[in-house]
């Protein structure tokens, strides 16, 4: 995986770049927005991390240019501007996620992984969260040496939760996806499937927990 980092503060650029390299990714770091944008036009990055307060051009303008050129690269905005309205501006301009400074390296890496899992352009043979590997080819789910041959509905549910790990997945979204299976009793079916999935995985050291957020949905929470 190759990541583009555009951050004007040299110290923060070095530290963030080092954090990403330690996680096993290749990183090209730039101080200026124009330089970063040129690099993005020439290299097919898997993800771009963009600071908004750049010295030569506003980060939001870089983001708009990226989307205007129909580049599909997932963009994680990394900035000192943290107000909700400003986050909305960033997301409206085409950001895929938003991380306000200061952040810790664990949160940064988790966000990047989540973006990669959701990215349609990322060529990923499998989803990995915690110790669980879910091959997208349809092979059984693995956790260490243990193999889990899940029913299609439980596997679909697990994939949905893993793609949005550490975020709440609304129950109605899961119900909607279940109705595609032709299930009339989708509300009960979701609860039944979650219960079955928990039971199947409970003995395994998955590194995550499937939490119920009553009245909202479910959260696959990674446990560090």
């Amino acid at each position, binding site marked *: 995986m190759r990541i583009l980092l555009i951050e004007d503060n040299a110290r923060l650029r070095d530290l963030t770049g080092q954090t990403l390299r330690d996680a096993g990714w290749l990183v090209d770091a730039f101080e200026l927005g124009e330089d970063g944008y040129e690099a993005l036009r020439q290299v097919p990055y898997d993800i771009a991390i963009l600071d908004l307060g750049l010295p030569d051009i506003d980060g939001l303008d870089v983001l708009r240019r990226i989307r205007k050129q129909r580049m599909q690269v997932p963009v994680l905005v990394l900035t000192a501007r943290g107000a909700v309205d400003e986050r909305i501006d960033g997301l409206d301009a085409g950001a895929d996620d938003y991380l306000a400074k200061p952040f810790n390296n664990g949160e940064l890496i988790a966000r990047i992984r989540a973006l990669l899992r959701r990215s349609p352009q990322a060529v990923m043979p499998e989803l990995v969260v915690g110790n669980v590997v879910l091959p997208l080819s349809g092979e059984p789910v693995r956790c260490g040496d243990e193999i889990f041959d899940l029913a299609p509905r439980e596997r679909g549910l697990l994939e949905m939760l893993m793609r949005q790990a550490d975020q709440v997945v609304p129950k109605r979204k899961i119900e909607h996806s279940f109705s595609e299976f032709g299930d009339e009793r989708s509300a009960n079916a979701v609860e039944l499937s979650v219960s079955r999935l928990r039971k199947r995985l409970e003995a395994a050291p998955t590194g995550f927990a499937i939490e119920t957020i009553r009245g*909202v949905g479910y959260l696959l929470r990674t446990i560090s």
Partner: protein
Amino acid sequence: MTRPLWQIAAIRIVFFGLIAALAQMALVVADYYFNDEELGRLLIEQQVDQLGEGQVTNGSATRYALPDEMADLFAPGRGYFARVRTVDGTILFSACDAACEDHFLSRTVRPPDFWVRFIQPGKPLHVAGGGTVERDGQVLMVEFATVGDSEGLIWGVFWHEVLDHLVVPMSLLLLFAVGGAIVSIIAALRPVEAAAQAADNLDPLEVGEGLPTGTMPREISRLTGAVNRAFKRSGDLIRGQRMLTSAIAHEVRTPLAIIKLELSGIDSPKARKAEADVDELSDFVAQLTALARLEAINERQFQDTNLAQLCEDVVSAVAPWVLARGDTIAFEKDVEAMVLIIPSLIRDACRNLIENAVRHSPPGTEITVRVTGGPIISIIDRKRQADASMRPSDSLGIGLAIVERVLTLHGARLVQHRNATGMVASIHFNSEIPT
């Protein structure tokens, strides 16, 4: 209570008009009262006219019947006398004894069209007189005399004069003055009304040409110009404040990010403690900038919003953090309430209250966000066991200041109360649009 300007002007014009009328009336009465000759003449004129109304003409024949309202006036001893005759001397009516004949002209005399003779000067009036009255080609000679005016007929004269020369012309004047003033004021204030509506939508950050002053009266145009300048100054102030908060945010948050990343590389409990301190400091910076940003709010940012959906989104967003702190969170809704709010601000307020509930509760606390009729958003924390070390706080510090400022902007209020298992913080909205 505020009244429209046209109403205030109309009331004042009528008020001062009435004062002027009263003053005028006093002058008229005084003028007549001290002019006995004029008063006597008018009394005779009035009574001759009134007596003349009793004339009935049928072809060439003329008859006379005393008008009803005068029937008792000429009773013996009251001091009033009258005589009505034709040109050829035929008496049609007479309320005159032999003594009173002295007051009237001799029957053989053809009287002039009008005559007055004072029997005795001063008041009460002692006056006699007469005049000719012509109806349907028939001429009558009417004579009237009073000795002492025991019935106070002069007041009828005063009233007649006031009505004729004061009430009728002044009423017309007042009517046109009030009508003209109302029309002028409404026409002059029409651009002010338009400017008031425009002011509601004026964004201090994008004043442009400001409020239109073109067709306004000069005095109001000056005020509007001053308001426009004040708006521009506010805009400059807000821009400056935003620039300052943005600069603070940038200048403080970036070093904080560097410190956090540096600390994360240090494997020591002291580093973890320092990381927690950095987190608190960055929260404080975020709150400060949020508080400063609230001053730039305007009417256009209010939107009809589904409160239940908004709360569900907030719960969804904070759930990972709440669970990471060892608590649980749930969402319940009794109603789908639509309210006019600034969604981002109410979202921040709810988030602040949830974070406060989590920070001041022991691990294992159940947080419930509930939307009920009113509409009301309640953030309820239910502790699993009493924990003396985690004393619930009544204050959110700067967080509370933000929540209260946000709620004030929405015409809403915060109610907090403690029960046996924890705290309940409720946001009560008015269904009305905030103004």
